[in-house]
């Protein structure tokens, strides 16, 4: 079917996955509230299943998007491989989140059915954030996603850490949204449009049409995005928010929210401002450099594994920024592939953190992992896979992701970034493999409690570990898919010149 946004019905077809998810969110809210009424009784398992069905239905609708033809390249909603790819990513992360959160709610005896509604709405927000070509829609998606995730962060409101994390995340998130919105206003003032395709046309391939307003607006947009993807020096909220939030929510934040912010980051800068690459390529260069070096050094002394993984997620933002600096089809393909691997291994690693920490999340320290591999082989083996992939050891997805990013940046001539990426990855081996060393080569404490793993969580662990290995053994197929998505995004003529000073 051909879509040209001439009739309002076109919007429904193009937004099929979002519409499906929104309807499911409203239905689940009603089912839950009519089951529970005003009582404190826990939500039923049927709510979680309904959420899973909603996510699968949205995935089916997302597949159907591939049959649509985009007849209006300046339409407000993108129909390209990039959007379909990232949509799958968000839906997959939400699906992995379900069993973890169910386990968490059961452990803490606070089964709020609202969590699943918030999950679906956050996913809708991510899809809008990453899949639209209109800065206002992008902002609406950002807010829908953020507001839902703020509430999810404060899910366990009786826990001081969770409440503190939610407040910090909310205040700094609102602060960064203001930057973002001001950037949109300036870009609109400078170009007369909020549509990325039109902005590109006004700015021109060589950036000749850009004035001071556009440049200032672009810089403010970069600040807003850098906050959301937690790039140094805009990362201050990340360790506290990630450590304080319930571990399943942290997994979702670190994987899906960051993926959405990065996807939108890429779309805005590569399709809206390719003509100004000379300017923003330099910003990305320094952001990537600071993020890779700073985060990896700060992760070294962490004793809490959850906090270490929070810093590690900042470090991975640095690697992804390198792919953004490359700003080529190869770079975007590497970015998408890395995002896939990153989502899987981050979800998995935080799931293990929750399994070890267990109720009230008291056991976060490194010493709790002593002898874990022998006490709970399934958790130990899958965690080892996640750690190896995070560090970038072949044959895992993390290795091929870094390889693809290196290839892209070297092809663009950014040797400095490539060298720093390799060196900081070597540093990261220490703090990742230290956890693995504790798991396999340290005696367990005398009173170490068993790790009870439910079936749902085992399924999450096994599925994400298997997927991490699978995309590592057959990288070509996934890279091919990513390249198709990248090529669709990069149809606009690209600029010349390389990154870095």
């Amino acid at each position, binding site marked *: 079917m051909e879509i040209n946004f001439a009739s*309002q019905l076109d919007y429904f077809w193009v937004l099929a996955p979002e519409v499906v998810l929104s309807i499911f969110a*409203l239905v689940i*809210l009603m089912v839950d*509230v009519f089951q*529970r*009424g*005003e009582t404190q009784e826990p939500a039923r398992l049927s709510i979680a299943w309904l959420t899973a069905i909603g996510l699968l239905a949205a995935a089916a609708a997302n597949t159907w998007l591939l049959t649509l033809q985009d007849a209006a390249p300046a339409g407000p909603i993108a129909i390209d491989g990039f959007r379909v790819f990232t949509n799958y990513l968000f839906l997959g992360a939400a699906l992995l989140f379900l069993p973890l959160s169910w386990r968490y709610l059961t452990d803490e005896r606070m089964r709020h059915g609202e969590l699943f509604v918030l999950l679906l709405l956050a996913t809708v927000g991510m899809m809008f954030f990453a899949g639209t070509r209109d800065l206002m829609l992008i902002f609406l998606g950002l807010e829908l996603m953020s507001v839902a995730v703020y509430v999810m962060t404060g899910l366990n409101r009786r826990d001081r850490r969770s409440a503190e994390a939610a407040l910090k995340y909310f205040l700094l998130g609102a602060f960064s949204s203001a930057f973002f919105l001001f950037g949109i206003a300036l870009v609109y003032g400078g170009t007369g449009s909020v549509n990325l395709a039109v902005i590109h046309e006004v700015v021109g391939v060589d950036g000749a049409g850009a004035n001071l307003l556009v440049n200032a607006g672009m810089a403010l947009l970069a600040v807003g995005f850098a906050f959301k993807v937690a790039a140094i020096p805009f990362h201050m909220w990340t360790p506290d928010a990630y450590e304080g939030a319930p571990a399943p929510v942290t997994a979702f934040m670190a994987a899906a929210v960051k993926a959405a912010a990065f996807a939108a980051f890429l779309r805005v800068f590569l399709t809206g401002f390719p003509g100004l690459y000379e300017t923003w390529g330099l910003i990305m260069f320094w952001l990537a450099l600071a993020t890779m070096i700073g985060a990896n050094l700060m992760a070294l002394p962490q004793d809490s594994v959850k906090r270490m993984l929070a810093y590690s997620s900042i470090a991975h933002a640095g690697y992804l920024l390198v792919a953004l600096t490359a700003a080529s089809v190869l770079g975007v393909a590497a970015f998408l592939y890395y995002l896939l691997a990153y989502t899987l291994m981050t979800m998995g690693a935080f799931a293990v953190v929750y399994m070890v920490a267990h109720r009230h999340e008291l056991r976060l320290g490194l010493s709790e992992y002593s002898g874990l591999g022998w006490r709970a082989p399934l958790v130990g083996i899958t965690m080892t896979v996640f750690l190896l992939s995070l560090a970038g050891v072949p044959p895992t997805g993390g290795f091929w992701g870094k390889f693809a990013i290196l290839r892209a940046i070297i092809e663009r001539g950014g040797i400095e970034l490539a060298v720093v990426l390799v060196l900081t990855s070597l540093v990261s081996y220490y703090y990742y493999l230290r956890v693995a060393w504790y798991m396999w080569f340290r005696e367990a404490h005398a009173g170490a409690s068993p790790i009870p793993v439910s079936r749902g969580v085992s399924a999450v662990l096994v599925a994400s570990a298997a997927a991490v290995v699978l995309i590592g053994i057959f990288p070509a197929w996934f890279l091919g898919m990513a390249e198709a998505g990248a090529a669709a995004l990069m149809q606009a003529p690209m600029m010349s010149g390389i990154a870095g000073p």
Partner: protein
Amino acid sequence: MLRSYIPILILLALSLGMALVIIVFSQLVSPLRPTPVKESPYESGILPLGTAHERFSVKFYMVAILFIVFDLETVFLIPWAVSMRELGWGGFFAASIFLVVLTVGLIYEWKRGGLRWE
């Protein structure tokens, strides 16, 4: 193009100037004889009880949030109602979807006891 904004600028300057003149002159010219009664905060003629910096029950916030939601509903619905004929069925369905979403939220709050005052 910018020239057409000059009347607005003049209006802005005039209103600012007027406000300044009124404030400054009433400070300079008016007789000031303060007494404790005159300096106490005015609460509709009732003697003030304690400070205003108190904790409010969360119920007030619930009502306030609900009010904002339905306040915004009016903000959206009145422009739609005014131009309903031009917008046609597309506008009608868009407004209906908006109302359905708000109604679901209201039902949720009602069923969860958000409207109960005790």
